């Protein structure tokens, strides 16, 4: 008996269990949700995770800080750049490594481009879960443009390993900056099109308004972060609250909605893309000259003994890295606190007493990335 089970007539035996997943078109990966259904209505939902467990935390205990560099971007393949940069920033803070100005600006541009590409993929897959196939391909087309831009300097399109302790691996050029500015102008127009096609659509509104409401107390109980939290009315963004890197130099808003339903989450993410464009435009116009990789980086990365916690705003929420160092080359313990893990653990409370089709919409709207849950 699940704690979130809706009361049910004990005499009624007309309920059944449905396995949504591990292979299901809308679980976005190998994840399983055990649904207890009464007709189309969900009595209880139990997410079962771990199908994509790759033991990143164990890997971290077996290799030194530098060798763990390619891993963070594999934890969440959609926000790879943000995770990659975030891990570098965590180690840089622990080691007190100075990062050159130019590198910081490059990181901001890449981070925000990556955030937009992640949100675009979310938009596409979310709408595909709702049955609209065309916006999915439009979103992928735009995402492809971002990947092309990032591909030019990072050499990868999905799992970036671009940041290094003390900067980035390759300098950007004017062509890159031009591409970015062109993309910004193009994308602002394109967002309006999305809004016409999607946000205004009456069917989309019917499917999302009032669906999958995160009750106000849920935030505190389950440590909801990111766009899901902002859709509940909390103006909470790691980039504003604990500005890491140089986020405190940029002027941007934290979009919030109060309803906490799928539609609010959609609006928050759409607005977030617009704010990311704002940050990128500022960063591109202020781009300083100079080094892109610090000249003096310690050869051996050995943070002083103690615990470190560093969190970044990933497209899904607050991604935290807890590093326990014993003063050696190898982390004693590296815990990855991933936002999707918290969000999916709240699913039993959110999904109870919704419809089967809503379960799909909710899963789509919270933007889960299964490897990030399983790590």
């Amino acid at each position, binding site marked *: 008996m699940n*704690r979130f089970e809706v009361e049910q007539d004990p005499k009624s035996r007309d309920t059944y269990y449905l396995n949504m997943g591990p292979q299901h078109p809308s679980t976005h990966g190998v994840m399983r949700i055990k649904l207890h259904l009464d007709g189309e209505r969900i009595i209880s939902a139990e997410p079962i995770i771990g199908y994509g467990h790759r033991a990143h935390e*164990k890997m971290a205990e077996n290799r030194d800080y530098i060798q763990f560099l390619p891993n963070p971007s594999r934890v969440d393949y959609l926000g790879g750049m943000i995770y990659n940069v975030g891990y570098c920033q965590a180690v840089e803070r622990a080691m007190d490594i100075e990062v050159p100005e130019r590198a910081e600006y490059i990181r901001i541009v890449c981070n925000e481009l990556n955030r937009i590409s992640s949100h675009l993929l979310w938009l596409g897959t979310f709408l595909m879960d709702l049955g609209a196939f065309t916006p999915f391909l439009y979103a992928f087309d735009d995402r492809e443009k971002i990947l092309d831009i990032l591909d030019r300097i990072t050499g990868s399109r999905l799992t970036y390993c671009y940041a290094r302790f003390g900067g980035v691996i390759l300098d950007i050029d004017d062509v890159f900056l031009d591409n970015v500015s062109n993309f910004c102008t193009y994308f602002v127009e394109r967002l309006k099109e999305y809004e016409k096609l999607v946000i205004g659509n009456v069917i989309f509104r019917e499917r999302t308004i009032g669906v999958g409401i995160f009750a106000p107390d849920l935030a*505190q109980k389950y440590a909801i972060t990111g766009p899901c939290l902002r859709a509940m009315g909390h103006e909470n963004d790691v980039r504003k609250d604990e500005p890491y890197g140089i986020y405190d130099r940029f002027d941007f808003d934290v979009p919030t909605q109060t309803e906490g339903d799928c539609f609010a989450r959609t609006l928050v993410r759409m607005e977030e893309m617009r704010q990311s464009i704002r940050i990128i435009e500022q960063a591109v116009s202020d781009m300083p000259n100079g080094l892109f990789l610090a000249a003096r980086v310690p050869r051996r990365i050995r943070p002083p003994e103690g615990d470190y916690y560093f969190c970044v705003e990933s497209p899904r929420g607050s991604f935290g890295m807890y590093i326990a160092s014993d003063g050696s080359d190898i982390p004693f313990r590296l815990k990855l606190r991933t936002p999707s893990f918290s969000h999916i653990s709240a699913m039993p409370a959110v999904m109870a007493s919704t419809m089967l089709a809503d379960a799909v919409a909710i899963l789509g709207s919270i933007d889960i990335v299964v490897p990030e849950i399983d790590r």
Partner: protein
Amino acid sequence: MIADKLSSLLRDTTEVQYDARGFHVQYTASADTLPQIADAFLSENFHLEMITCQDRRENDDAFRLIYQFNQYGMPQRHVIHADIAPDATAPSIAATFPAADWYEREIFDMYGVSFDGHPDLKRILMEEDYFGHPLLKDFVDPPNPYRSEDDAS
């Protein structure tokens, strides 16, 4: 204030340098007071950011549970260290913070630490019939039965 509520429950309060460490206060507590600590944090509008564990059997002959609480708006991270003996169980705080439910399952899965009063303590990331606890320092990776010799490179 959270500090007043916690003063009777915690020892070794250390204010740490936020700029270097990323959290504000670090405490050491004994494991059996964890439910009271959780209640205190809940009443002060904190949320449970994460629970994790360290295998310190080699140095201190203990597992160290690490609870991290934070609050929305103004970040205020409180980290609580609670050492438990390798064969002891810790009290569950899933009743206070439902978020702890999965974290405690994960620690049970990865370290074999049991939690009293957990609603449904079972493996979460590894399959249910798995034998070991992978994040223990003395864990040995078993040979993969599904991979044939000529496949291995």
